[in-house]
């Protein structure tokens, strides 16, 4: 019986120690300066108290969920009111065949001021173009022929690749290994979070961040 008590006690102590180590190691990091922001892919006030960088992949189903469920309310309630500066970062995962192509089109559309419409059509038709590979046709469905010509020229120009690579490298710096990953910056602290967040959960977190002294 004593032996059992001793082993149970040791086990409990070991677990407490492991938890304490994890607790100590998991404190928020000091925030680096947010760099390489493409103004066409950033929304809200640069002076907002909270900065959110969303690392996303157009072919990832969870990113679609985040975009279609949470983003709209976030834009209306926090970005438009100047509380959050939202930065979209491209993080095309190598496992997805067309996500880099889609990222190029998304970037190109952003350069001509059509980021929102193109992001929406790409996410909403994700299941279709990931089967067919027809990213071009999907984007063309929401742009005028003149806009589409500009977008195609930008995609072929190759200048966007460097921007996507920069975002990707930045994500690797945050140790992003899945999408979507959102990196929050507030009052000198950085909190990277992986996964889809419902608007209610995000709202609770943002309100707490904003009320921090």
């Amino acid at each position: 019986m004593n032996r059992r008590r001793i082993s149970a006690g040791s086990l409990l102590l070991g677990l407490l120690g492991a938890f304490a180590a994890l607790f100590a190691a998991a404190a928020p990091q000091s925030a680096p300066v947010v760099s390489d922001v493409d103004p066409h892919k950033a929304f809200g006030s640069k002076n907002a108290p909270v900065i959110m960088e969303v690392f996303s992949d157009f072919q990832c189903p969870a990113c679609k969920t985040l975009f279609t469920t949470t983003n709209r309310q976030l834009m209306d309630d926090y970005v438009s009111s100047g509380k959050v500066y939202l930065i979209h970062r491209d993080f095309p995962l190598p496992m997805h065949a067309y996500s880099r192509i889609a990222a190029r089109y998304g970037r190109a559309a952003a350069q001509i001021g059509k980021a929102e419409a193109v992001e929406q059509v790409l996410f909403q038709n994700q299941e279709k173009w990931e089967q067919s590979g027809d990213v071009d046709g999907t984007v063309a469905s929401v742009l005028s022929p003149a806009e589409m010509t500009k977008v195609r020229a930008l995609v072929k120009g190759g200048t966007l690749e460097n921007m996507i690579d920069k975002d990707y490298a930045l994500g690797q710096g945050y140790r992003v290994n899945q999408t979507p990953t959102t990196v929050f910056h507030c009052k000198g602290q950085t909190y990277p979070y992986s996964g889809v967040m419902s608007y209610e959960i995000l709202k609770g977190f943002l309100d707490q961040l904003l009320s921090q002294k």
Partner: protein
Amino acid sequence: MQSSPLNFRRAVIWIGRLVLGGIFVYAGFSKLLLPNTHLWPMFVLKFSLSMNISSFAQQIESYKMISPEASQVVAHTLPFVEIVLGLLLLIGWRLRIWATAITAIMVGFLTVVTRAYLLHMDINCGCFGTPEKLTGMTVLRDAAFLALALVMTVFAFIEARKPHPWSAPEKA
């Protein structure tokens, strides 16, 4: 003083307890605390747990076996059940009951991952907190764990029939 009565069956039971108990505790903790491990201040911890449980619920949903509501219920309970069962197995109290429970859960896990594998579902297995693609290796790993759980449970029942030498009355 009596030496440790280690035989093949008891060795297997010990290995099963350590391996499966450790894995269950890790699986539960990792689902709750990985990949998002910010723990302080308290509202950040709350957000971390909410995010991790919500990600786990999404992984359960991706198996397309139960409704989103049921996925939420499973996501909010399974990690805690895994931790408690793993600890009980490590402690060894009422071993037969908890070994049987873990075996039953392993049967469930193996059934679910085998179904997804046979249907060629391109999903994460959701076994631990970090993303892990469901492959044939996942099925083999779960099968190996189930085999260990099964053998451990059977041996635990066999051993329970015999009095333990430490607690057996001394012969006159």
